[in-house]
């Protein structure tokens, strides 16, 4: 999937936040979304590069991918199951 052009339904900005806030906020954001919607997460915590993909594939959801942005943060994409 072309991550630069994916249509997202919601953007969660957690830049500057460290463990455990990235996962907590991601879990909360996903709870409020409908099935099939895509959540984009902007994060800076290095731990998120493993945590978000692992968590994103749980509970019927699908982790679509991640890409490093030129501004220094990482963009993660999760599709609600």
């Amino acid at each position, binding site marked *: 999937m072309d991550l630069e052009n994916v249509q997202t339904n919601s953007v969660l900005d957690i830049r500057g936040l*460290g463990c455990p*806030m990235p996962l907590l906020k991601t879990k909360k954001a996903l709870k409020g979304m409908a099935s099939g919607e895509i959540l984009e997460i902007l994060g800076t915590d*290095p731990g998120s590069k493993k945590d978000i993909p692992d968590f994103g594939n749980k509970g019927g959801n699908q982790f679509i991918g991640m890409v490093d942005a030129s501004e220094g943060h990482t963009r993660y994409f999760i599709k609600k199951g």
Partner: protein
Amino acid sequence: MKTEIQKYYSAVFEQEWPAWLAGMLIAIIALMIFLWESPWTIAAGYNDWGNWFWYLAGAYDKRPLDPWFHPVSLSNTGILIGAFVSALMARQFKIRPAPKLEYAKGLAGGILMGVGASLAKGCNVGGFFSAVAMLSAGGFAMMIGLGAGAWVGLRYLLWEMEHLPSQAVYSKPKDKTKSKAFDWVKIQPYLGGGVAIGVIVVFYVYAFADKTQVGGWLFFGFLIGLVMHRSRFCFVRAFRDPYMTGEAKMVKAVAVSLIIYFAGSSVIKGAYLVEPAMGIYHPFVLGSLTGGFIFGIGMLLAGGCASSTLWRVGEGQTKLMVTMVAFALTNSLTAKFLQVSGINEKLGQDIFLPDVMTWQITVPLVLTFFLTWVLVAMWNEETEKFVVF
């Protein structure tokens, strides 16, 4: 050949190591430290740093042990440097700012951990990890306290998420097209290699000065810091994840680590290679239990325990720098208060489990305890019965 080396470099220094592997390596290093001099701990190092601050500020009369001669101060420094080297090798080192609320939590978390570690006579390492492996009853009591404290801490974070706004904060990278500034990221691995060689040189300097045993603590700490940062090994997650995401991964990693550590310690003590009562100084039950509870809340607020605070500082996280300072200052003050007030005498007794239950009962009982912990965590992973959110 170059591709092969790059592949191995990437596997070792860029990709995240699995938690179970890190757990095994940490247990092995901890056993080396135990045989080297005494069980691995962390809070005692923070205590020395805090003592120095208050001594220089004029609050204490007694001059503390120099931080470059205090074994735990040295191993803590080693952890910091090991994590720094690991971050550099992966080009991950960066001074990372945080929102104001996170700094407030870092401060509060450090204070609570400082107090908790004083009551329990150890942090998550000295008061729980090493204590349990040494078969000190206080270690198990602290473990229960940590579990309860983590639950309360998580409940606070959930409340905060609902009721307090948070702002994103990040440092923008410099525009490389506009300036001819040095590409700092590219040279990080070389700097990391240089620092690693520096640590080995310093160890040789200690040996040359006939201080090999003290210098060894720096080196072992360095190895632990490297392993912990490579794997992002965090004791907090063993207590938090079952309530937060249901994941049992860190429970398994810590349990595997504890099984190896306690098995090794039992053989060493059982064979009288060291005095069996070594490492048994945890006040069972009041000190360990309440200390663990308070520490548990603190580590959730801070987003790191005593050990993971150090490796997170090593990768540049400014919130945990605040935590580290608060922990050191508070731990020193609380320890002084508990001693002077006489409360220390009322916190409990040091209990070496084989003295109470015999080796024949203690060993299988402790093993069963760890396996039960893992099984319950795995059951929770499937059923999410303990997940609060």
